[in-house]
């Protein structure tokens, strides 16, 4: 690649550093994100270190990025959307909405272990659409672990139950834009003519979640048959009936309703996300102390991803990359299948969010340039396909925090997790292709 500007070269250097650090994790993954933003500010921003950003002629240097644009990634609408989700989740936990809801939802599933397990998986998946996958897994495991003693010695059902929860949490995260951070990263690239609303995301992703969840349930039952005949899960607590609790219930329902009905009121999901933030703060439902429980590391991890994408786009590197490499000569199906498989493999060995941070900016650039992809849904299709693949980290304890928590219960060994995990991830990838094909047929990817 001849004629690379200095800024572009620096973006390449930052990108490779990010890739190395996110894969090998010499420092925490959110710290890598902060490092990306820091280095971008110093080396390629309009207010960078003077001898770095004033070196050479303007043509050689390339286009510097406004420093405000880089700093804006900390409070980008996507970050606010996630913050809104965090407020909802925190209030739900604090006012025991999650636990009481789980209690009600679990009741119809009775005491037959097979159905109880399906119930647990459905509840876990639904919760992880709005809460973090980790918090959901922690909550559901805390319900499950005390009753693990009922399993007869040598009953493999214990493993089935322990794995059901993290798998359901991983799968459930796909269901909404706020379900898991990779979805948030994808939103950065789903703008303009590729814009996707909260409701559209759910319409697109929910069928996938339902089908994969059922497959995971059947698979776990087949691999680890349950011998115990009866299982009774008891969930403590009763509905809170004070003023603040009612405000939480109403705000929770209202926010979700507003997310789904943007075509009525005109506010997009980013603005709706401020409802729980404002209401819960005003009524002292989330207080100063609760703010400490916000996972700033998750928000900053996403910010770094957005900043990396920004640098690739604004420096012109993304465009140049695409022009230089003759992607046009490759088969579009080969590109789609190889990149989704790469995403799945990476997600199994490293953070799902870091995978999305690294792959999505490249994929987005690729999607724009590759006209042969248009027949299959173009840019929107490939971004969504890769994002879903980023949630297919199922096989190892290190794949996702939910997997690590389930592993820490001691009820399973790595190999017990790997077998169903690999199968579910592979089925998930195939199902992903089927979903993209069907969405293409119904015209989901058509430019508005």
């Amino acid at each position, binding site marked *: 690649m001849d004629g690379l500007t200095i800024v572009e070269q620096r973006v390449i250097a930052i990108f490779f550093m990010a890739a190395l650090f996110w894969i090998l994790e010499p420092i925490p993954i959110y710290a890598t994100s902060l490092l990306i933003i820091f280095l971008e500010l110093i080396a390629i921003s309009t207010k960078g270190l003077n001898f770095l950003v004033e070196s050479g002629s303007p043509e050689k240097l390339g286009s510097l990025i406004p420093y405000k644009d880089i700093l804006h990634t900390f409070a980008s609408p996507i970050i606010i959307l996630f913050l809104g989700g965090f407020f909802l989740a925190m209030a739900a936990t604090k006012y025991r909405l999650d636990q009481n809801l789980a209690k009600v939802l679990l009741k119809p599933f009775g005491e037959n272990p097979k159905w109880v397990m399906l119930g647990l998986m459905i509840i876990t998946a639904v919760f992880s659409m709005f809460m973090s996958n980790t918090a959901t897994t922690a909550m559901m495991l*805390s319900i499950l672990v005390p009753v693990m003693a009922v399993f007869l010695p040598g009953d493999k059902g214990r493993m089935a139950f322990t794995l059901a929860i993290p798998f359901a949490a991983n799968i459930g995260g796909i269901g909404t834009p706020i379900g898991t951070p990779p979805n948030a990263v994808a939103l950065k690239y789903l703008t303009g003519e590729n814009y996707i609303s909260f409701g559209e995301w759910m319409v697109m992703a929910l069928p996938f979640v339902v089908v994969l969840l059922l497959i995971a349930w059947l698979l776990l039952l087949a691999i680890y048959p349950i011998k115990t005949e009866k299982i009774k899960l008891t969930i403590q607590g009763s509905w809170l009936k004070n003023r603040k609790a009612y405000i939480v219930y109403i705000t929770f329902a209202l926010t979700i309703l507003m997310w789904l009905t943007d075509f009525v009121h005109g506010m997009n999901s980013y603005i709706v996300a401020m409802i729980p933030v404002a209401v819960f703060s005003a009524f002292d439902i989330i207080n100063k102390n609760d703010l400490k429980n916000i996972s700033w590391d998750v928000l900053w991890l996403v910010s770094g991803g957005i900043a990396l994408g920004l640098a690739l786009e604004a420096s012109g590197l993304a465009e140049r990359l695409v022009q230089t490499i003759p992607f046009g000569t490759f088969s579009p199906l080969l590109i789609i299948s190889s990149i989704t498989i790469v995403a799945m493999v990476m997600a199994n060995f490293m953070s799902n969010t870091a995978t999305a941070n690294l792959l999505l900016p490249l994929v987005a650039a690729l999607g724009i340039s590759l006209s042969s992809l248009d027949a299959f849904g173009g840019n929107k299709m490939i971004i969504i396909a890769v994002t879903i693949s980023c949630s297919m980290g199922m096989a190892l304890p290190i794949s996702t925090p939910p997997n690590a*928590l389930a592993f820490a219960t001691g009820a399973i060994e790595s190999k017990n997790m790997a077998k169903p995990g690999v199968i579910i991830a592979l089925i998930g990838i195939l199902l992903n292709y089927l979903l993209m094909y069907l969405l293409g047929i119904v015209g989901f990817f058509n430019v508005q």
Partner: protein
Amino acid sequence: MDKLYVLCVDDQREVLNALTQDLEPFETSLMIEECESVNEAWEVMESIDANGDHVAILITDQVMPANTGVDLLKRAKSDPRFQDTRTVLLTGLATHQDTIDAINTAHLDNYVEKPWSKEGIHQIIKVLTTKYLLSKGIDYNEYTEVLDQQTLFETLRKTT
């Protein structure tokens, strides 16, 4: 990886030996340290802190020559360096007043009567280590064999 210490303080050698033997299963993750007096314990605690490591759990006998266990606990709790250290009073001879002091002034986490049960002390170590790790923000994934599941789940579900 940060080193986590469990300090066992007792003036009777045989009690210390029995205790550390019972704590052996944790030796892969935790450093078990023995001290025969309050003064020795304090010196060890200061040197652990000076090295940037953690005094995670302090298990002490009450009745010892010179200073008592409760004296040590009070001193630790009033020192900012050991504010998060979790404490256990392991004794057969604490008076009513000692016990009240230990709870009210030294904010004792656990009171264990001699003779202790191995399973009981294991459970206490797990719970207290988990609480210590979470309060310090140390990556719990590196300590899986000493984690208490319920304590971990209860804390994690409150995070976002």
